[in-house]
Every structure is written in structure tokens, then in C-alpha cells.
């Protein structure tokens, strides 16, 4: 009986085929894990930014004594006491808040959002309110955009409360 040394061509081909399949499977699993990790990070960042936006928008609306909404480009401008103004502008990948204080440099704050998130601002009446809705287009036919955030803030709420607390003459 002759002792076999090395591998036959068929064995080599079989090993290469199995190895290739395993490599492809492992690569796709790693890629999927990396994609999932990236999605998690984006989701967390967007959630944080939107929570901050919701909080700031409510506070500005409550403190404001007037509001102007422009649809093109999407913009809300609040007039605050002491001549200050706050402007929220919707861009493709962010919403910008600009605080203008007379005699001082304006302060900017950015709320990042993915491009597929659509923001719409509208003004509502009785009582005067600001409506900010952010939806996500899932890009699937027949599926409507998914609501991600919906804030309805009352304009001048704090001002009204302060006025009621002032003693009547």
C-alpha cells in the first residue's frame, strides 16, 4: 500500500469551494453587524437632536410674544421680549436655530437630521400654536411617511401666565 503524500486536485477544489462559501458568509455577517451598528448610532443621534429641538422649540414658543411662519423656505420667527428674535430654518439635513440679541453676535444651534426626514412647520389658531411635524419617508410604494415627531407648542404661554399673576390695578 502506497502512502498518500499531499492532496489531490479534487480535494483542493473542494476545500477552496467550502472556504469561499464560509468567507462570503462571514463577510456578509460582519458587514450586516457594522451596518446595524451605524444605524443604531444614527438613530441615537437623531433621537437626541430631535428631543433637544422639541424642548427648545416649546420653550421659545412659550416665551414669545409673536410669531411669523414662512413656508418657502420653511422658517419660523419668534419675537421675544427685550427685542430678541429666534428663527428656526429648515434645511435638507438640519434645522438651524438662530438667536438674535440686539447689540450682540447672533447665536446658532444646529439640529442634525437625515435627508430622508421631512420637516413641516405650520401655524394654528385659537389658541395660537406652532405645529412642527417631522416624518420619515420609507421610500416604499404604498407606505405613507412615518411620523417621527409632532410638536404643537402654544405661543406666548409664559407671557399669559405672567400677566395673570400681575396684580390688577
Amino acid at each position, binding site marked *: 500500500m502506497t502512502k498518500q503524500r499531499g492532496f489531490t486536485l479534487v480535494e483542493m477544489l473542494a476545500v477552496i469551494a467550502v472556504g469561499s462559501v464560509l468567507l462570503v458568509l462571514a463577510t456578509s455577517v460582519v458587514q450586516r453587524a457594522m451596518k446595524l451598528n451605524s444605524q443604531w448610532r444614527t438613530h441615537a443621534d437623531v433621537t437626541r437632536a430631535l428631543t433637544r429641538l422639541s424642548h427648545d422649540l416649546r420653550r421659545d414658543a412659550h416665551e414669545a410674544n409673536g410669531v411669523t411662519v414662512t413656508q418657502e423656505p420653511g422658517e419660523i420667527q419668534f419675537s421675544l421680549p427685550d427685542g430678541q428674535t429666534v428663527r428656526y430654518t429648515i434645511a435638507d439635513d438640519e434645522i438651524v436655530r438662530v438667536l438674535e440679541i440686539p447689540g450682540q453676535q447672533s447665536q446658532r444651534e444646529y439640529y442634525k437630521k437625515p435627508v430622508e426626514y421631512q420637516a413641516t412647520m405650520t401655524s394654528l389658531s385659537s389658541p395660537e400654536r406652532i405645529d412642527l411635524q417631522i416624518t420619515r419617508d420609507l421610500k416604499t410604494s404604498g407606505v405613507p411617511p412615518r411620523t417621527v415627531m*409632532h410638536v*404643537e407648542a*402654544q405661543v406666548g404661554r409664559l407671557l399669559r401666565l405672567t400677566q395673570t399673576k400681575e396684580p390688577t390695578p
Partner: protein
Amino acid sequence: MLPMRNATRNGLMMTELIVAATLLMTALSLVVTLSFRTGKLWQESRHYKLAVEELTNQLERLTILDETELDAALGELAVSEKMQTALPNPRLSGTKIVDADVTRVMLEIEWDRVGKSEPLTLVGWLAPTVEEQP
């Protein structure tokens, strides 16, 4: 009989194959379950956030009304149009609670969730009118 040293092995034992297959299947089922669970968790947290926003929006509107207007508003209380499509089967209810000197509004929202969950509750105090000021 003593075991042979340097014996060549051709192929694998059935036990080894079964163990490998079991490990592979367990790992796969874990990954699939985790993926589904992650998706569900995302959806639940999104629904919860939207429900809190809905209650906040409704309370902002209700807490500036006077007591008479509040009764009427509570009678007509309904989930906003946007939330009706965003949350699965949402139900909103409101109660006026009159304490010794203040009036509160308690809003509760429920929607279809997996498992038994308590409704989400938010309470707001009515803004005092000028006459109520000391």
C-alpha cells in the same frame, strides 16, 4: 487494543458534524431573534415618544382653558389626526380633578402594544385666573 499513533483521518465523525450544525443553528437563531427584538424595541420607543408628545400637545391646549370650557373640551377629547395614523389604535381619555384650591387635568393614552401595559398618564394644572390670585 492500543490506539494507533499517527493514524490518518479521512473525513469527520457524525458527532462532530452534529455538534457543529447545532452550534451554527443556535447562533443563527440568536441573531435572527435579536434582529426582530431590536426592530420591535425601536418601534416601541418611537410609539412611546409620540404618545408623550401627543399628551403634552393636548395638555398645552387644555390647561389654558377655564373650568367651563375645560368640561366641554374634555367631552370632545380626541386623538389628533396625525397620531391616529402614527400610533396603532390610540385611545385618549381625560379627567378633571378638583382639589381644595386647584384644578388638574389628567390625560391617559393607550395604544395597542405587545403584552399588558399600563396606559401613559400626564397631569397638568389649570392656569390660575386673575380672580383666583391672592
